[in-house]
């Protein structure tokens, strides 16, 4: 059950999400790669409530993550690259 890829990733790359290797396609954003791999949760609120990508067009800030060491990056408008490191606060 859950999100799935409509077609196999073109020119696959590997990204590292909280230490786990995840295969992604060249056309993926970080958010789409996370969702396709079943990782819906991108952050949690101070009280522990889980959150995931919501608007997917750069407005809502629910998908912000540490990407290649840089804080506050929006996963939904960031293209994946081979070896990219994503740290989610979950």
């Amino acid at each position, binding site marked *: 059950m859950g999100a799935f890829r409509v077609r196999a990733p073109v020119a696959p790359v590997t990204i590292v999400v909280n230490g786990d290797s995840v295969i992604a396609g060249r056309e993926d*954003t970080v958010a789409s790669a996370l969702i396709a791999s079943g990782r819906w*949760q991108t952050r949690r609120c101070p009280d522990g409530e889980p959150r995931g990508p*919501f*608007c997917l*067009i*750069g407005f809502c800030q629910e998908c912000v993550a540490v990407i290649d060491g840089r804080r*506050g990056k929006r996963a*939904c*408008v960031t293209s994946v690259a081979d070896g990219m490191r994503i740290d989610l606060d979950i």
Partner: protein
Amino acid sequence: MISEPKTGGQDLTPDLAVVGAGPAGLGAAIAARAAGLTVVLLDDQRRPGGQGLRQGIGAPANPFFARDIHHVLADPAVAGVDYRPNSLVWGFDEEGLHVEGPEGRYRISAKRTVLATGASEWVPPIPGWTLPGVVTAGGAQALLKASGVAVGRRIAIAGTGPLLLQLATQLLSAGARLAGIFEVAFFGEWLKTASYTMAYPPAGVQGLLLCGDLWRRGINVQWGLVPTRIVGRDRVEGLEVSPISPRSGGARRIEADAVCLSFGLTPAYELASMRGCRLAYDPAAGTWQVERDEAMRSSLGDVFVAGDGVGIGGARYAILEGQLAGCAAAQDLGALDTAEAERRKRTIRRRMNRLAPLKRFLARTYRYRPGLIAGLPLDAILCRCEQVKVGTVRAAIRDGIVSPHELRILTRVGMGPCQGRFCSVTAERVLALETGRSPEDLGISTSRPPVRPLAIGPEEEGLREDAI
């Protein structure tokens, strides 16, 4: 919190700066460049096209969409435009646009500026709408078209408007199953609204094809239903829908692994508001919009506004509004003489008039429905970022809050990272309903820079986005 521009980004002084590379921004940039202006086109996204002309992987160009835009969609630079993707405009003042992009932070002081910032979906704060797996319908489309990812295998689509049906056929073609399409409008009302599009055949035909496709697949839209709760522990497990008229029975629960919501759009007017452009309240849409004249000029002479960021008209209409603004800017700067500029503007306006039925259809479909706000349960989260509940906002209003600004300071509504993009409109609507006063009286929540959060901290040194 705002730091000085970093080194690496060179300040620019083009004739025209266009913010947003969606339909309106592309229209403006191309029209102005064709007239001979130097144009910088800034976009927050990775690819041009915005939401209205999003390019899919291997997807055929939609034949109903402006042919003249397609050849520059792949790369606006071919038109001679200085196109800058992944560039966030986070502020706009007398000094110009403040940009954070791959080059670093810099400023653009253009002779004229077109704001084509688009819109984001308005979603009423339904309990559970913060669960992972709940997305806007536009978001689900973006995910599918740009990255080839379907949001779920058993998807519930709820809300109102043509996007529900469009998304449904796209997801079905991709191999997903639907848990149902739940439309707020009743069938009769929906049909009457949809009939507006018949006066503009391309849209009418497109609509009929959509309905035909769903009918062939045996998918029935369920009418007069509003989503009242999204359930799940750590992610979506189901959706509860209730008849919009309580006499028609109780709530029903549907199992789903993803929920897509679409109720209308909120124009992204933050930059215009911050710069000091006058806004006006549109009671039918229930949103504030930037005031502008026939040539898309705002109350400030050197700032134009075009596209869904001003009033919802759809992609076709937005392209034309952009072109109008681009021509007017070129005329201002002497690149087009008056006769030629007027001739071009007349042609564009004629095309806009043909699209008027479509604009009426969208306005009617996405009209403000106070019923979606009035019945909100107190435990629903109104402001996602700051986790402020409907009950907290109502209590503050009953304690005597009389302006969106006070509401913001007291409850922290709209103070989070999204800067109120998803809750300010809702908070203003709740305030109007509770106080019985009009939004014009109550005023608007002020927009302040940065409109989106900037990367702050030691890691921002150099801001090397090209490494990503």
